[in-house]
Structures are given as C-alpha cells and as structure tokens.
C-alpha cells in the first residue's frame, strides 16, 4: 500500500465508524421508543459494523508503523528505524491518538461480542445497550476524528521550509516523509508493557458493557434478575483483564522503573485501581441480588460508579490534570472528556433516581441476621467503597484543593504522595481480609454467632498458630537486623537503642499478625472447599474426582474461592515485601566493592560496555551474589542508553536511559540490584525484597480463579432434565421399597 492510501484508508474507516456509531445510537433510541423493530435491527447492524471498520483503521496504523511510514505524524512520534519489530506494535498504544483508536477498537469488539452473545437472551434490553455502547464509542471516535487523529500527516507548503501537520492537504501542499522517527519511549520496551496497556484497556472497556446493561435495565424497567446475570459475566471478564493489567503494570514497574517496588500509589495506577475496587464490590453484591433478590439499587449504583471511574481514570491519564509517570502529555481531549464524564454522571443519576423514586428498584431487601452472608457481603461492599473513597481522595486531593484555592476557599494546595496511603488503607484491608475468611463460612439468611463461631474455629486456630510461628521466625537476628534497619534509618552510627528494639519487635508483631490474618482467610477458604470435597468423598467418590466435580458444578462459587486464595498468596507477598524490605545505596570504590544486605553479599566485579542491535548503548555491571561464603548467582544489572536523531544538531543524541535490574530470585525473596553512574562513580542501589514473588504467584492464581468462574457451565435445561429423571427413579425406587 502506498503511504498516502494507508492514511486515507485510516481516516475514512474511522470516520465511517463514527457515522455508524451515531446512526446506531439514534436508530436504537427511536426504534425502542416507537417499537419499530426494523430500526432496532438496523441499529444493531450499524453497531456491529463499527468493529470491522475500526479493525481496518487499526490495521492501517499498524501497517504504517511496521513499514516506518514517517509521513504520518503519529508513526514518527512513536516509532523509529531502530525500534525492533516486536515493539513497533506497542506504538499503537504508546501515544495519545493511537491509544484512543485502540480504545475505540476494543470497545467496538466488546460491543460486537455482546450483541452476538446476548441478543436473543436479553432482547428487550438490547436497544438501550446499543444506545449506551454507541454513545461511549461515538464519543471516543469523536476525539479520534476531531481532536487526536492518528492519521494526521506532515505537509510541506511550497516555497516555505515549514512543515505543517494536518489530516487533509492544507491547500497545495505536498506530503512530506521524515527520514526517521522519534521512537517509542524506551520505558515502554518491556514485555510487560506490551501486554499491560491492552489488558488495562480491556478491563476499562469491558466495564462499559455491564454499565450498558444496567443503563438498559434502568431505561426499560426490566429490573429483574436477568440483567444482573448477563452483567455479572461481562463484569467478571472486565475485572479479570483489569486485574491482569494492574499486576502486569506492577511487574513492569518492578523491572523497569528501578525503585525496587511494584506499587507506588501513582495517580494513574490509582485510576486503574478505583474501578477495580468498585467492580470487586459489585461482583460480590451481584451474588446477593442473584441469590436473594436484594440490593438492586446498590448494584445499579456500583456498576454506574465503576463506569464513571473508568471514564474518570481515562480522563486522569489523558488530560494532564494529574501528574504521573504513566500519564500522556497534556492534550486537548481533557475538556471534552470531562464534559462526557459529567453528562454520563447526570444521565445515570437521573435515571437511577427516577427508578428509585418509582419504587422499581425495591427488592426483597430484608436482613434476617446481621451475621448472615448477605449482611457480611454488604459490609464487604461498604469496605470496598471506603477504600475507593480513600484512594479517590488521595488521587484527586491536589486537583480539588487547587480548585478550592482558585476559588479563594483555601490558601494552600494539598498534594498527597505515597505516604498518605498505608495508614489510610491498612485498617480497611485488614477488615476486608477478615471478611474474606468469615463471609464464605456464614450461612445465607439465618445465621447465628454460635454456628459461625463453630465454622471459623479452625481458621482462627491456624491463624493464631501462624502468628506465633511468624513471630518466632522473625526473631532471629538477621530478620531483626533487616527490620530494624528498615525502620530506623535515622540512627546515623547504627546503634539500636532499647526503645528502637521494642519498636522493631512491635513491627515484627504487626507483620506476624498480618501473616496470621492471611492464613486465617486462606484456611477458611480451604475449609469451605474441603467440606464440599469431603461430603462427596463420603458418598463414594475419590478425592480428586470429588474436587473436580464440585468445582464443575458451581464454577462461580469455587472460582470465587480460588480468587480468594490468590488474594491470600498475594497478601503474603505484600506483607513480606513491605514489612521486611531493606535497601541500601553504595558507591563502589577500588577498595570497597561489597554490599551486604539481608542474607546476601554482593561483590562488584567489573563494568563492561556493549551496543545492542537497536542502537542503544549498554553499561553492564558484573556482580557475584554470595550467601555466606557460597556463590549463589552472577547478576548483571545494566543501564541502557537510548539515542534519538536531533535534526538541529544533525546527530544522534542520548535521549533516555533505563535501568535494568539484576536479580537473584528465589521463593524466599528477590535480591535486586540496579546501577547508576554519578560523577563517573558507580553507584549500586540494592534491595532485599522478601517474599515478593508471592505477589506474582497470587496474581496468577487470581486470574486462573477468574477463568474457572467464567468457564461456561453445563446447559441448565439438560442438568434439570437428568436430575428430574434421577429423582424420579429414586422416588420410584423408594416407593417400591416401601418408602421412608
């Protein structure tokens, strides 16, 4: 394809998709209002066609990237001749305009799937599902077509040396192709970054579908249980992708950002966490509506909040309102995005209030016991909402107080860093973990303290045992040293005083309590699974078939338990790596080339330089890791220096450099080292991150659990039929035998 054609195909297909989305929205609305089936069908077809159109648009952009078509501005901004083919693909979401197109494409794909899967089963809701999805898609395509067009090209106006950027030829200009591009931000050249943004986008976009069903249910008044069943599956899909996105983002930060951690409470990280929190709350309360017909209003509110938080997160990332390492540069999309957010909020709140006022959202809202499972789920929801408030305030305090200052209501602006979160978040997380253990063991409806106490007796005993064990294990000197150093850095000459020692013990106790808590939650979950397996085993099944049949018969429930187990493992990693993390910075000198940290000693051997095929220079440190006197690993932390072509100097100049950690990784923890050069001196930053790999193991279990929950169950009709036959046969047998 010629360069011109690529861009023009892209422009045309994007614009057609916008027109199709607009048509689908209007046709679905009018069709639903006037009950004209033909219009609704037409709207469906128009909505469906957005997917192939946007697939072509994305394909064109990708094609241009793979062929280094630098006549397209976006391609020149996100790729260069040196970028490996594998990473050229990531350019699709590496900049504002491309990522918006990618967002739209995913949105159209989700809509396509939802229209195909749910068209028959949720027929009455579908016109309004089209309205909501197409309104959202139409909005993002509007941004793509009018504000951030990825197919904008360079044009050279005859007689001048100036280049102008425009979608269409501004007069009699000629298209101009740059010799090389700026290249992708080197920080994005990581496998995690290849997968992380698509996963996050899938999570974000995925939540638009449950919102659309909720919107449709509110608009049509079809507020029975059918919308929540359709919504739950979509919400679970979105939640899984969002979880994957968050975990991969953490892994990317750990590998690439070079600060030894995986979560920095960065505003953009928080923006992705917020819909995850309300989404999690929704997935729990949806169970209550499904089982008990309760919490209709609450579920509506949660899914609307989740959608609004998705839009808010997108706004935060793209408007430049919050400052973050992950955010795109400030752009024109902020204002329209805020307007869309405000309109979505207004429409949703009006619809919700109208239905509530009519009493349409009133379900069987009654609680028989405060210790029943539904009560505990409600409490769980409240805790997730509280967490959302805490994180939301932490993320937006600066923007809010800036507005307050501009209005003259305040003198100062409050900017909250990562230190705000631990004291605010920890108590809520503790309560959530307690509930994670208790709630699955509580009965629906009628529950008594005695029965619940009986059920949680073993998990409590195991939890207490782990507290004692963890406390005793942490009391060996190495751990105490690590912990004390981490908590009393101000001791300049390193003397631990009695008070400090006591405070260190206290920290160890808190960590031990944390381990006990996750052990409690984990044992409670395992107990619940074990009860089911044991019951089947008593009926003659072997343990493994009993387990697999149990899971297969109620995938939602047991998938949920696996997710809980994933959270337990993740909790172990978080506690270990935060309570006992230790770090040191050391400048290597000829006579002093060793760093001792945690159970390891790092010995710096030498420094070499190399050049990669993509043009980057690498400074590689070679270091040996010893445990005691035994050599356990050779690590090679390095710095990659990336160059870009500077037209003004007519040469390549160092643009960015990136730190790649050298890690000795075991189940016990990661011994993690990065290097930098300061005034020609080699400086090592070394981290000891105990149990950190449990974070990733937990994440994998969590995703597998979600897949189990999502896996389609056997057809209920067939199951019922076979059950009826069996029951009938049993009844006949009982009658024949005289009955009981």
């Amino acid at each position: 394809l010629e360069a011109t054609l690529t861009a023009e195909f892209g422009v045309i297909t994007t614009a057609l998709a916008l027109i199709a989305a607009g048509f689908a929205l209007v046709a679905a609305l009018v069709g639903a209002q006037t009950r004209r089936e033909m219009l609704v069908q037409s709207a469906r077809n128009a909505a469906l066609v957005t997917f192939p159109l946007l697939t072509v648009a994305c394909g064109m952009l990708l094609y241009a990237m793979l062929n280094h078509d630098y006549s397209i501005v976006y391609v020149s901004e996100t790729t260069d001749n040196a970028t490996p083919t594998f990473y050229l693909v990531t350019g699709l979401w590496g900049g504002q305009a491309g990522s918006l197109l990618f967002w739209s494409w995913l949105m159209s794909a989700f809509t396509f799937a939802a229209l195909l899967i749910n068209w028959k089963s949720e027929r009455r809701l579908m016109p309004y599902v089209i309205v909501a999805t197409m309104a959202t898609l139409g909005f993002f395509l509007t941004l793509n077509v009018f504000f951030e067009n990825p197919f904008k090209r360079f044009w050279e106006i005859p007689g001048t040396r100036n280049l102008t950027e425009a979608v269409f030829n501004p007069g009699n200009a000629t298209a101009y192709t740059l010799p090389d591009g700026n290249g992708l931000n080197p920080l994005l050249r990581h496998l995690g970054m290849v997968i992380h943004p698509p996963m996050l986008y899938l999570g974000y976009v995925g939540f638009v579908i449950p919102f659309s069903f909720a919107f449709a249910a509110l608009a049509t008044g079809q507020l029975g249980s059918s919308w929540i069943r359709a919504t739950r599956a979509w919400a679970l899909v979105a939640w899984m992708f969002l979880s994957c996105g968050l975990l991969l983002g953490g892994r990317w930060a750990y590998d690439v950002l070079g600060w030894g951690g995986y979560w920095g409470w960065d505003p953009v990280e928080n923006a992705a966490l917020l819909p995850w929190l309300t989404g999690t709350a929704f997935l729990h309360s949806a169970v209550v509506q499904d089982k008990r017909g309760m919490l209709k209003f609450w579920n509506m509110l949660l899914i609307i909040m989740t959608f609004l938080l998705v839009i808010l997160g997108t706004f935060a990332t793209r408007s430049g309102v919050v400052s973050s390492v992950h955010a795109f540069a400030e752009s024109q999309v902020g204002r329209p995005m805020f307007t869309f957010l405000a309109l979505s909020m207004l429409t949703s709140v009006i619809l919700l209030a109208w239905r509530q006022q009519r009493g349409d959202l009133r379900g069987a809202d009654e609680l028989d016991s405060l210790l029943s499972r539904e009560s505990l789920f409600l409490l769980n929801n409240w805790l997730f909402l509280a967490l959302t408030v805490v994180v939301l305030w932490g993320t937006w305090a600066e923007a809010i107080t800036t507005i307050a200052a501009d209005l003259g209501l305040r003198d100062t602006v409050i900017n909250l860093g990562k230190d705000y979160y631990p004291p605010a978040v920890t108590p809520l997380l503790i309560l959530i973990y307690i509930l994670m253990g208790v709630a699955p063991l509580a009965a629906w409806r009628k529950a008594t303290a005695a029965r619940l106490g009986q059920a949680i007796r073993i998990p409590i005993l195991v939890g207490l045992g782990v507290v004692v064990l963890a406390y005793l294990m942490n009391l060996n000197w190495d751990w105490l040293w690590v912990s004390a150093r981490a908590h009393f850095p101000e001791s300049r000459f390193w003397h631990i005083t009695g008070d400090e020692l006591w405070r260190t013990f206290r920290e160890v106790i808190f960590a031990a309590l944390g381990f006990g808590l996750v052990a409690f939650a984990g044992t409670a979950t395992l107990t619940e699974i074990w009860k089911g397996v044991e019951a089947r085993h008593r009926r003659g099944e072997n343990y493994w078939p009993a387990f697999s049949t149990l899971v297969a018969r109620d995938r939602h429930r047991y998938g949920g338990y696996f997710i809980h187990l994933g959270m337990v493992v993740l909790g172990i990693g978080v506690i270990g790596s935060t309570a006992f993390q230790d770090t040191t910075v050391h400048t290597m000198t000829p006579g002093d080339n060793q760093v001792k940290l945690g159970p390891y000693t790092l010995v710096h051997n030498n420094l070499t330089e190399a050049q990669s095929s993509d043009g980057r220079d690498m400074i590689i440190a070679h270091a040996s890791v010893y445990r005691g006197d035994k050599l356990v690993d050779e690590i090679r932390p390095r710095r990659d220096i990336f160059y870009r072509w500077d037209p003004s100097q007519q040469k390549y100049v160092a643009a960015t450099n990136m730190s790649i950690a050298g890690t000795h990784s075991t189940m016990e923890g990661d011994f993690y080292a990065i290097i930098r050069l300061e005034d020609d001196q080699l400086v090592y930053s070394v981290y000891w991150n105990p149990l950190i790999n449990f974070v990733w193991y937990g994440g994998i279990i969590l995703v597998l659990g979600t897949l189990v929950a999502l896996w389609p169950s056997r057809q209920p009709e067939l199951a019922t039929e076979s059950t009826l036959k069996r029951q009938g046969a049993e009844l006949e047998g009982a009658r024949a035998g005289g009955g009981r």
Partner: protein
Amino acid sequence: LKARVPEEDGKLRKLIFLLLVGVALMAAPDVQAQGGGENLPPGVTPDQVNVIAQQLTCTDCAGVPLNTCQTEVCTEWRQEIADQLGDGKSELDIMDWFVVRYGWNVVIGAVIQPNGLREGVTQDEVNNVAKLMYCDVCEGIPLDACESAACLEWRREIGRMLGVGYDQDQIIDLFVERHGGDVAALPRDKKDLRLVFLVPGLIILLIGIVGGYQVWRFRQRGHQAGQVVRRSSSGPMQTRPVPEDVETDLIERLEQELKGLQ
C-alpha cells in the same frame, strides 16, 4: 561588697580585687577572639557569632578558626555571620550557606568521603529523607528513585544538609519553604495534615451512617407483618401473616382481584 567585707580585713579586699582581675582576664580572650571590627546587629551577641565562627575557617587561612583570625576576609565572614544572625537565620542555615558557597573545606574537621558526603553521613540516610519527598518536575516519582539530574542535585543538597547537622524534618521543611508544598509526600502544615485524613474519614462515616440506616431498615422490614417477600429470585413468593387490623372485606376483594389477574 562594702557591707559584707569588714574594713579592717584588707587581705580579703585584695583577694576579691584579684579575683575580679582574674575574671576580667579570662573574659579578655573572648573579646579578642570575637575579633572586633564587625558591627553586631541589635540582639546579636559576640558569643552567638563565635559559636559559628569557631567551626569555620576562611579559604585564605586554612585551619585557623574564624573567631581567632584577624584577616580582612575573616572579619568579613564574621560580619556575614552577624548579619545573618541579625536576619534571624539559624546556626545550621548559616553553616549551610558557607558550605554552599565555599565547599566543605571551610568547615573545620570536615572529612569528605569519595561519594561527596561528609564522614558519618551515608547514602542510605540521604535516601531515607529523599523517599519522603518529590522533586517539582518529575511526575510523581519519589526523590530517592528519580534519576534526573535535578533530583540528583537535590539528593546532594540533602546529603550536605545532613552533614551540616539538619535533621529529617528540618530538611523537608526547608525544601517545602523553597519549592512549595508539592515537595513533601504529606502536608507539613498540621491543619492540612488533619484535613487529609479527616475528609475521607468523614465521607466514610457518612456512608457508614447511610449504610447503617439502610441495614436497620432491612432488619425492620424483615420483621414486618403482611409483607410479600421473594425469598430468592427464582423461588416462589411467600407472605408473612396478615395484621389483625386489616379489614376482612379488603383482603377478600384483593384476593379476588388477584385471582382475576391470574
């Protein structure tokens, strides 16, 4: 003194005189050490100047404390100290001011490590302060993790301040004063700090109250008589006993209407 000392006791009078002379002589080196020459601003005493001056040496006369040196430069430096004290600057601020301008060589006894930090200060200590701060250009990256040239310079500044004797809070306060509140991970102002935790706390409390009221209503509804409830979304409708005060005619009419609907 006259009242206490008998006139006939001349020896004692001599002794007291000698004591007074001794005291005057002991005070004399201080007067000399203060060097004279500088004009002390109101409220600044020579002792205050000397406390700082004795820790410093000027670039011309290496090793000789400022308070004992009579050179022109030393006099100027003492004047500088006096002026800064007059402006209300603290001892640490003044020491830091001299180190910034003239380097560690002007601090008597300062030994500098190869990494540029004063002996006794470690890079870990620098980072432990830096991790509580953000620079005002790097987007949300804590100062200890940021690798920009500006952040490196700030960490060096922290290292120097630790070497002079500032503590963690003083350093952060100074940075906040110079570069604004965004530098600190949490507000330094006590009122703002309270507000930071109060706002989410109050919102959570409000949600809790509304949620609590809702739970109370759910509980009440669970005990109400005569209400039709659905035990599960798929299960049959069930009823609670009809209250006694409802008229029988009304119930019959309702039942008939319901049958008609069926």
